């Protein structure tokens, strides 16, 4: 049996009901590719900044990394990886879209939009975790204010 991956088309031949993207769409894709790479560089800066502030926070603590900070370490590493992943997918989305436009390559175009899909799935996950963390933060503040009889 011939096994091929479902994500990558092995050949491209347009069928009768398919049509060229046209100048306008290609113009929009060109701008999308440009801003996607810029956004990715921004996300990489954000990741690096998060890493630096996180390490600074751990080093400043007297107990340091030795005791009780394993949870913080894991939490930091996971959030770093997730944000870096967003930058990675956005960067390759921009790069592959640009290559598709330059080389008139349909397979690159479809691969680029697969990268966008990965970015959006990861983005959905990050947004959900962000929501949960913020709700927890609200809950903590509520109990803190309650314990000081502020509510």
């Amino acid at each position, binding site marked *: 049996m011939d096994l091929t991956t479902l994500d990558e*088309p092995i050949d*491209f*031949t*347009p*069928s*009768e*009901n*398919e*049509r*060229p*993207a046209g100048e*306008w*769409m*290609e113009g*929009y*894709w060109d*701008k*999308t590719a*440009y*801003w*996607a790479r*810029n*956004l990715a560089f*921004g*996300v990489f*800066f*954000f990741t690096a*900044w998060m890493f630096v502030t996180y390490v600074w926070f751990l080093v400043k603590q007297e107990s340091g990394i030795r005791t009780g900070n394993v949870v913080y370490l894991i939490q930091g590493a996971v959030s770093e990886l997730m944000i870096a992943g967003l930058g990675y997918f956005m960067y390759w989305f921009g790069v592959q879209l640009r290559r*598709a*436009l330059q080389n*008139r390559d*349909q397979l690159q*175009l*479809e691969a680029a*939009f*697969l990268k*966008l*899909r990965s970015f*959006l*799935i990861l*983005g*959905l996950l990050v*947004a*959900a975790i*962000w*929501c949960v963390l*913020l*709700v927890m*933060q*609200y809950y903590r*503040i509520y109990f803190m204010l309650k314990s000081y009889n502020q509510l």
Partner: protein
Amino acid sequence: MKTDETTPTPSEKSTSGLWLTSRMMDLLAANARIGVHATILATIAGLLAVILSVATMWWVWTQYADTSESEAFYLLEGDNLYKVVQFLLTFSMFFTYFKGVLTGFRAFKQLKRSAEDDEALLEGSERLWKTLYWLTLWIAIYAVSAILEYISLGN
């Protein structure tokens, strides 16, 4: 039956350009479905973060407000300039973030209908690059704000 002689048959079509293939349209629709949910969650998270951020800012300002001296406000006195710049940057971040996320929501809503509506396909694609533009501005303002904070900590 009349046939248009200028329309190429599938075998005659050149594959060198970029095409709106059915696979490509499926990809756009699949992206749009995920994108709509992602932007809704990002809007909720953004709202929660903004409320928390504004409340914290207000609390810090009321707790550490300097009321010992005259009530006159001088921009270059103490760290007033830094506080004002940070305040403006924070609100620019709120604006660009929500502008980006809401533009993204509209883009994905239109791209969802792109298979049957050409206008939606074009407008959705235009809004997609605008989403990335606003989010890039947001992250650039964040970078300026973070660098300023670092400089102020150093002083």
